[in-house]
């Protein structure tokens, strides 16, 4: 299993749709297994509720989904948000997407877009670009933090060496 995409349908009477590796899964047991797996990856996501509130206020004009979130794992990327399409009461349809083949949000977003189109759904491109830029800034922050720790370690090592010798 490389990718899992879950989405709700237009009516609550129609069961939710699960796409496994880009194909609609009609087997209830497999769908449930895939859904359970999705739910194993949506804990402690990158954006906290506070971050999302800030985002929503900052990008009010982009109509950012209140559920927009992501997490990059060592093996795969998880993204959640809303499609442009709405259900019969006018609410945007949510999705959860897990991609084990991608290493970045940008890559995963491309796959998500392709798979969504197969179902006749469209991702909010402004929202996706926003997510990509946030993930890049998080990645940069992480890299800078790592560089800082490495620098500190080297400094400590040099100091130890210096005083050890003296």
């Amino acid at each position, binding site marked *: 299993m490389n990718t899992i995409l*879950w989405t*709700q349908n237009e009516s*609550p*009477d129609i*069961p*939710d749709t*699960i796409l496994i590796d880009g194909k609609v899964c009609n087997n209830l047991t497999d*769908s*449930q297994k895939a*859904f*359970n797996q999705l*739910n194993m990856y*949506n804990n402690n*996501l990158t954006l*906290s*509720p*506070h971050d999302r509130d800030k985002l929503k206020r900052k990008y009010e004009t982009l*109509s950012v*989904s*209140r*559920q927009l979130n992501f997490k990059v794992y060592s093996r795969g990327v998880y993204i*959640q948000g*809303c499609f442009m399409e709405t*259900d019969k*009461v*006018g*609410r*945007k*349809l*949510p*999705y*959860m997407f897990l991609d084990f083949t991608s290493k970045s949000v940008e890559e995963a977003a491309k796959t998500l877009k392709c798979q969504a189109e197969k179902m006749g759904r469209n991702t909010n491109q402004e929202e996706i670009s926003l997510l990509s830029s946030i993930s890049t800034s998080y990645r940069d922050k992480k890299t800078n933090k790592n560089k800082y720790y490495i620098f500190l370690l080297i400094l400590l090592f040099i100091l130890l060496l210096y005083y050890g010798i003296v």
Partner: protein
Amino acid sequence: MRLLPRNIYEILPFPMYEIFKMFVPIVLDVTTTVEGKSLGVLGMPESGKTQLYKTLKNEKYTQEEATSIDEYPQFDFVIKGRKFKVKSGKDIGGGEMYMQSYYEKFIKEKDVIVFVFDIKRYLEDLTYARKVRSRLEFIWRKLMEKAGIMDYILDIFEIKRRYILFASHGDQLTTEQKKNVKSELFNSVQGKEYAEMFHNNMYITDLRDRKNCLNYSIKQNCLDEYDSLDSK
């Protein structure tokens, strides 16, 4: 056949029960923690689960998007000079798939279980009503599996219950429906074990009505008061 007493007066005759009831909340208050309670809101699709969270948090809810998974931070609310705290958690959707993934987990881990369903659809749509009952039966079974002797005692003494049922969209009922709603509901679950949930802990309401929602939530003593503003 029910081996355990249904009515408390079968165990403690009047006024023993009333006296007992006065003392138990005092003991419970002493043991209450200040961390707040965790809330697990389960329910049917489009029933108003997110609306309920927003109502409790006193936030404006615009019906812009359906819910998949939405984490919310810890929050407080004040009612009648009493302050309550709700732990952070997850707002989940109402689809069938959530049942297997989350219902058992929530019943096991959360302090209070809230089930929300649309009362108008329940009365008008047989399939919907059947689905509600099937979910309630599942919840009841799991609650009973987890219940200890203390839960049972607190429940029959009507002191502290772990679950609340919100029959939402109560404002959309016709006058005729409003007149018969309770009897229709009770008839639909007659003879079922989980019928107790309907009898004891169900509130028909409009989930936008904050005062009612808060009153109902604390009426069951489900949520712990951690700070009395009156005493300040």
